[in-house]
């Protein structure tokens, strides 16, 4: 038989003004199982809590109901007090007779009856409460960072500097990401590679960072604190351990005309290559699709000239399993293109701009490579079609961004600023040239950002035209830009030598597939979703996985770096304890009754339900049942409401507890 103690709080006069607390204490005192009931001025005060603890011990109470304010206010307080008195904290419940009763009713009789019923309901509930031990989960203090752009690099360095091992995985042959492609950065115009490459070298040299380039995530298993990640290391055809990075192979490779993706396919590279001179690691990779040896079986020049004998045509893809406790996703972005899209695709191209077939209509990233001192033109702005310097250049903002009719309604956030930067770079590099910018709005919030934009107009002679461009077409060696200037209300036609499109930021291709491997959610554009837009912006709803950079939404460099450091801080918080403690409000499966229909698994938003084989002593399979991983379960209970035979139960909210409450009323 339970010995329940009921404590009715006056809350000063907040409750006792409308609820006759003494009568409530007297009435609930008569309920079966209630061994003790009393009322007190302030239960949450020190003397109140002392009364609670003392009574539990003196009266040998088995369960406690505190009738006071909302449990959202003081449930933790009283459960702690109960625990201090030697009872399991989950044997204490609160009855909300303030927010839900005394404050919302004026009639004393009605409020008193309601309060009595609320307390009675909680008395019946608490009888069915069970001892719930705190759940602890061991934490592997190693972290995986996916993506080696500035976000991934920053997160990896921060975590590694804190003394924890980091596994950094990059899909491309070198880390660096998009930031390594940029020429100068706004709003200071400092050289991107100058500030980026030291960080890349830090990664390469850091004793706590294990770097996998030219590698992809194959499989993610496990849960917070205990992930098992399988990484596919693609065959590089060059042994990383023996290669000295001397580069002779590249100079001798006969295939020299392969468009270099790093240079937006304007510059050329060899078949055995590093994407750019400052690449980390400085180990070449053989592009097997374009290599003569792989295509025809003849050549092998690189192997012959390689002193250390590092070239290995036989190398195969390998799989590596890394145990980690936390994952930072920093896969970055891709740029929208105006090309014709497949039929039925929700994102559309720009037929009015010739679907990307006019050679001198380029995107902003290509302009970056033209402007970059280490780029294919050595930093000269030259037209891809004929290598001439463009004397009239038109920049068009919001290409694909804020364009609902093209299927993307968001703002890409960085284009206003980089277009302003492009006009300046152009002004510096092409003397006597004229830059025009078509724009909808200029969005320049950020430290020194608006000043930067003003400078482009006021000091660097860019002509900004507020309006959109309706059509681009080639006329001779010019590109006719037809647009409108809505400030003046006229149609504008400019015969330009070159057009630069500020194309939208999109998530990386395959972002959805990676999300499915990780079990994290993403929006309709494939940007990854944070757990809470305001209060948990760097965490995924899936515990133990964090977001950094543009994979979550368009971001500039300072914002990306901030988020990466924030994600690293979250990882360090997780790693600050050996064991992860969590509230034991999780679902459990009664395996005896489970028939393995897995309705629970289908509705679980967290992927907490697994399939478990039950075998007899001889090892014969008896049946397959559901198993809820307590480390992953978030405790919503959707599984239980879905289970036809109620063989999965949410601790703290069991059917017994609920039915007891319903029956009490």
């Amino acid at each position, binding site marked *: 038989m339970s010995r329940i103690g009921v404590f009715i709080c006056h809350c000063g006069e907040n409750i006792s003004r409308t609820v006759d607390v003494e009568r409530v204490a007297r009435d609930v005192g008569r309920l079966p199982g209630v061994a003790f009931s009393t009322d007190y001025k302030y239960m949450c005060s020190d003397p109140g809590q002392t009364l609670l603890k003392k009574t539990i011990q003196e009266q040998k109470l088995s369960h406690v109901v505190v009738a006071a304010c909302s449990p959202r206010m003081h449930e933790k307080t009283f459960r702690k007090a109960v625990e201090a008195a030697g009872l399991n904290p989950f044997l204490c419940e609160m009855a909300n007779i303030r927010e839900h009763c005394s404050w919302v009713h004026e009639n004393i009789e009605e409020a008193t009856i309601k309060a009595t019923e609320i307390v009675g309901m909680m008395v019946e509930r608490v009888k069915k409460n069970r001892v719930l031990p705190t759940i602890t989960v061991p934490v592997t203090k190693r972290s995986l960072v996916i993506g080696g752009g500035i976000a991934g690099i920053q997160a990896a360095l921060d975590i590694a500097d804190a003394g924890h091992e980091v596994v950094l995985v990059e899909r491309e042959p070198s880390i660096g990401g998009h930031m390594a492609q940029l020429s100068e950065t706004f709003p200071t115009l400092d050289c991107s590679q100058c500030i980026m490459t030291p960080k890349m070298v830090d990664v390469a040299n850091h004793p706590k960072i294990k770097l996998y380039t030219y590698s992809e995530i194959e499989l993610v298993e496990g849960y917070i604190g205990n992930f098992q990640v399988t990484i596919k290391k693609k065959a590089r055809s060059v042994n990383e351990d023996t290669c000295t990075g001397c580069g002779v192979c590249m100079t001798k490779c006969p295939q020299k005309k392969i468009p270099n993706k790093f240079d937006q396919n304007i510059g050329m590279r060899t078949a055995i290559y590093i994407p750019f001179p400052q690449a980390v690691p400085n180990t070449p990779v053989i592009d097997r699709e374009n290599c003569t040896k792989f295509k025809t079986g003849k050549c092998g020049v690189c192997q012959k000239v390689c002193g250390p004998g590092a070239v290995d045509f036989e190398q195969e893809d390998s799989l590596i399993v890394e145990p980690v406790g936390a994952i930072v996703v920093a896969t970055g972005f891709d740029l929208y293109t105006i090309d*014709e899209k497949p039929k039925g695709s929700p994102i559309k191209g720009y*037929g009015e701009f010739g679907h990307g077939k006019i050679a001198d209509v380029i995107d902003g990233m290509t302009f970056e490579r033209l402007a970059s001192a280490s780029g294919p033109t050595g930093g000269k702005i030259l037209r891809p079609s004929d290598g001439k310097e463009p004397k009239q250049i038109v920049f068009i903002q919001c290409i694909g961004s804020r364009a609902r009719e093209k299927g993307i309604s968001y703002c890409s956030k960085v284009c206003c600023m980089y277009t302003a930067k492009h006009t300046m770079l152009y002004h510096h590099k092409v003397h006597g040239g004229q830059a025009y910018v078509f724009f909808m709005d200029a969005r320049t919030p950020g430290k020194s950002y608006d000043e930067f934009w003003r400078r482009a107009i006021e000091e660097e002679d860019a002509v900004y035209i507020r309006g959109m461009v309706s*059509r681009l077409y080639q006329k001779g060696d010019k590109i006719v830009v037809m647009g409108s200037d809505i400030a003046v209300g006229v149609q504008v036609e400019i015969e330009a030598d070159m057009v630069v499109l500020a194309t939208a930021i999109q998530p990386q291709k395959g972002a959805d597939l990676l999300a499915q491997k990780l079990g994290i959610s993403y929006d309709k554009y494939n940007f990854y979703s944070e757990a809470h837009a305001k209060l948990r912006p760097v965490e995924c709803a899936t515990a133990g996985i964090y977001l950094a950079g543009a994979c979550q939404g368009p971001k500039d460099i300072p914002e990306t770096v901030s988020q990466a450091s924030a994600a690293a801080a979250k990882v360090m918080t997780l790693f600050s304890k050996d064991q992860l403690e969590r509230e034991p409000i999780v679902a459990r499966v009664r395996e005896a009754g489970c028939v393995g229909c897995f309705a629970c698994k289908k509705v679980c938003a967290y992927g907490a339900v697994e399939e478990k084989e039950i075998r007899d002593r001889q090892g014969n399979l008896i049946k397959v049942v559901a198993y809820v991983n307590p480390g992953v379960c978030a405790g919503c209970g959707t599984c239980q409401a879905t289970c036809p035979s109620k063989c999965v139960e949410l601790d703290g909210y069991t059917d017994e507890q609920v039915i007891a409450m319903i029956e009490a009323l």
Partner: protein
Amino acid sequence: MNDTLKYAYYPGCSLHASAGEYDLSTRELFSALGISLTEVPDWFCCGATPAHNVDELLSLSLCAKNLELAEQVEGDLAVACASCFSRLKFTQHTLEENATKRKQVEKAIDAPVKLDGKVKHLLEILAKDLGLERLAASVSKPLAGLKVACYYGCLLTRPTDVPNLDCPEAPTIMERVVEASGAETVAWTHRLECCGANFTLSRPGVVLQLTNAILDSAKAAGADCIMVGCPLCHGNLDIRQKEIENVYSAEYNLPVFYLTQLVGLSVGLAPDQLGLNAMIVNPTPLLKEKGLL
């Protein structure tokens, strides 16, 4: 499958007035191709541009009622005029998306709105339903050597997601159809620019400027003639051509054909069956030169 293509036919007001030759050539061509057209009984004006500019509900109701009338005739609804086509498609689109407007319209026309029927421009019927292969097989007098500038205007393909006739900004359906008839097409820049449409009466200056740019671009691309699928475009390019030449001191002499006229020629129809005599810029010298007459 029944081999005969059957359509309800909505000519629209223009085809009963200034664009009589479009109506004539459409009926003759379709009958020559063995496609059955049955005029929608008691059809009336779609409201065109004026209605939707002043009263959206009126515009939607006019079209919804016409759509309802079209239900009486077997087959999808064939529409010749780009403007009627656009309004009918817009109505379907709007009423599908907006339940409130749908209710208002249903009250106005006192009948349930039916949106299942397909509205098709003649181009769609020729290129997709009949198919380019079958069209090409019907050609007896290929338009060999004729260089055609296909002019779409604003409404045939736009806005995105409403007419769904072809890619809204880089369509090819007109080119494909006239190439199936044996003609050559030219790549030109002003295929989708506006002709000024119904500003032809209120702001003729604007129209002259816009149409001049179109004619100039077609001429520069080496076209012998222009092909259209819209009575208003036709009016602005054909009827006003002489005036444009005078104002801009240019010489174009570009006959402006309806698509049904050119395709009609290729399947062997006679000039009087296609109403070629109704064209202001005389096509006879060109057609004779190319050996097509």
